[in-house]
């Protein structure tokens, strides 16, 4: 009788921590691998996993690794509460549970041949990192690629080393909220980085992730610049318990963010719902 239970979508798989690197004061990069080494970690950029810290609970965390690596997963986790704190405290060799991948992911297949603008606000850079890797690995399949990345403070930028490398291959523009002594770049909002960006509105796709207000403003900006809504993609966040459309928590109007999202085209429905409070 164990057969049906093994197909239980709510049952985590045992994984172990390979590496734990503190990125900045409250963000930790966690690399994990399946205990069953024959298990391949297959996923698309923009999907997420449910990570279970023993006894603390389970939270949705975006996949953050280079998608060509199939034997491990990496996540970047910000310590904001019970479960995330427990995950950030895990050390190499410590066990955890993993379910996934879930969600639709970024529409990478629709991007071929197009210019791509990647817009990230704060921790929103996490689910976009695999996108950048994918674009770099298949650089010739895409046109111009720009990464516009905003952060509250200079020290809160994630992936600093990689940003330096990426700069050699794509257009990387950074901005911080307010002037800071250790910052000689621009300050303001991510949308300010669009100034003097050359945009071919009929051949550009945009991917946006960050706090909801940043998503809303950035997407509106892109529509204003004439990019059609079906080419503006956003990634959303809501409370999630199941990730399979059964707990009901992540509903956003007609959609379950866990299975119909987290990535949505910024069409009329989504644009309208985002403008209404408390949907």
């Amino acid at each position: 009788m164990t057969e049906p239970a093994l197909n239980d979508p709510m049952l985590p798989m045992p994984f172990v921590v390979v590496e734990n690197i503190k990125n900045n004061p409250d963000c930790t990069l966690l690399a994990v691998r399946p205990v069953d080494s024959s298990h391949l970690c297959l996923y698309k950029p923009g999907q997420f996993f449910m990570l279970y810290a023993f006894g603390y609970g389970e939270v949705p965390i975006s996949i953050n690794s280079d998608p060509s690596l199939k034997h491990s997963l990496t996540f970047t986790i910000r310590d904001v509460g019970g479960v995330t704190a427990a995950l950030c405290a895990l050390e190499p060799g410590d066990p955890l549970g993993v379910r996934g991948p879930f969600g639709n992911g970024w529409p990478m297949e629709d991007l071929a041949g197009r210019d791509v603008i990647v817009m990230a606000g704060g921790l929103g850079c996490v689910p976009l990192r695999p996108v950048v890797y994918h674009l770099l690995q298949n650089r010739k399949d895409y046109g111009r690629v720009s990464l516009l990345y905003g952060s509250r403070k200079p020290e809160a930028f994630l992936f600093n080393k990689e940003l330096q490398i990426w700069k050699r291959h794509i257009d990387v523009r950074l901005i911080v909220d307010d002037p800071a002594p250790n910052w000689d770049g621009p300050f303001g909002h991510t949308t300010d980085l669009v100034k003097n960006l050359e945009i071919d509105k009929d051949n550009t796709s945009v991917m946006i992730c960050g706090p909801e207000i940043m998503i809303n403003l950035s997407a509106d900006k892109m529509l204003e610049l004439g990019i059609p809504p079906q080419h503006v993609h956003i990634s959303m966040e809501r409370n999630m318990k199941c990730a399979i459309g059964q707990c009901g928590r992540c509903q956003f109007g007609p959609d379950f963010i866990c299975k119909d999202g987290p990535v949505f085209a910024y069409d009329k429905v989504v644009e309208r719902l985002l403008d209404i409070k408390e949907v």
Partner: protein
Amino acid sequence: MKKTDSPAACIDRKDIDALFAALKAEGYALVGPTVQNGVIVYDDISTAGDLPIGWRDEQEAGTYRLKKRGDAALFGYNVGPQAWKKFLFPPREKLWTADKTRHAIAFHPETPDAPGYAFIGVRACDIHAIRVQDKVFMSKNHANPRYKARREKAFILAVNCGQAAKTCFCMSMNTGPKAEDGFDLALTEIIGDSHYFVVETGTEQGKALLDKIPHRAANEDDLKSAAACTDNAKNEMGRKLDTTGLKDILSRNYENPRWEIVAERCLTCANCTMVCPTCFCSTVEDTTDLAGNHAERWQTWDSCFTMDFTHLHGGGSVRHSEKARYRQWMTHKLSTWFDQFDTSGCVGCGRCIAWCPVGIDITEEAAALRTSDGEKND
């Protein structure tokens, strides 16, 4: 379940116990309506004597009372505060346990505990409600193995309503009062010169069961009497919900001032969601023993009316106002459910109307939105 084309039959009132005994002999656990503390609930039953004999339920927004009918009907009432989801999707259920050593966690799945339930007295609206939940829990990609095991084994003995409560509106939702399919056997209770049941068979299992108990073929008169029962229920139907264009009305009225009016009354107590036969929201509890080496995950019924439901770290709850929570519930039932599951989330059973402690009425709210369609606060 495929419908069979067997002709209708009749069973005598006194042979209902034979029917129950036959189900028991097949190994089914019988659950059905029974009176407890002045309310008809669903619980273990054994014989016809456990049924609410001679009772009817008088219902209105915010009230429910049992009254004597003046006859000895077995199924002369409509629906109470409980739904069959209490068996298929229990209010609290263990999902798995886990044990931890220094470098490993062993997860132990809970094997689906699946008694074969025989549901006695399932109304047409509730058959539809079960099918609505099937769409949630038995999706192709991610079936809930416990729900699925119980659902697939369940025997459904439907009963066609011969009366309707003031809170009923199945006719508006096209879900009743007569069960068209989705049952193993369906009874229509006839009380006249004699007390008997017209039986329709829905499945081969149903037919096989019927063959084990005394019955006779139904004649024209029997079928007429059964139709008259259904007509009586239609005539008594206490409420209406105009569904024309309703899905779109809801989806374009997120900012209608009506939500504020209902929010002044709504207690955000969640009773409506708990009693609704289609509401499926849940949460999980992760626990450990004090030493912290043994963990469990439990799933429990939850509700879109709680603050925790949309809690986001840092930002508090997405739907913090009462207005937003009631709006989510009703818009989901009557509009976004179609987008998600290609069906209405409401089957017109009226439970949410009767069991709302302050009598908020989904049909009244829908009608009010229709008349104020397009109004908006600035």
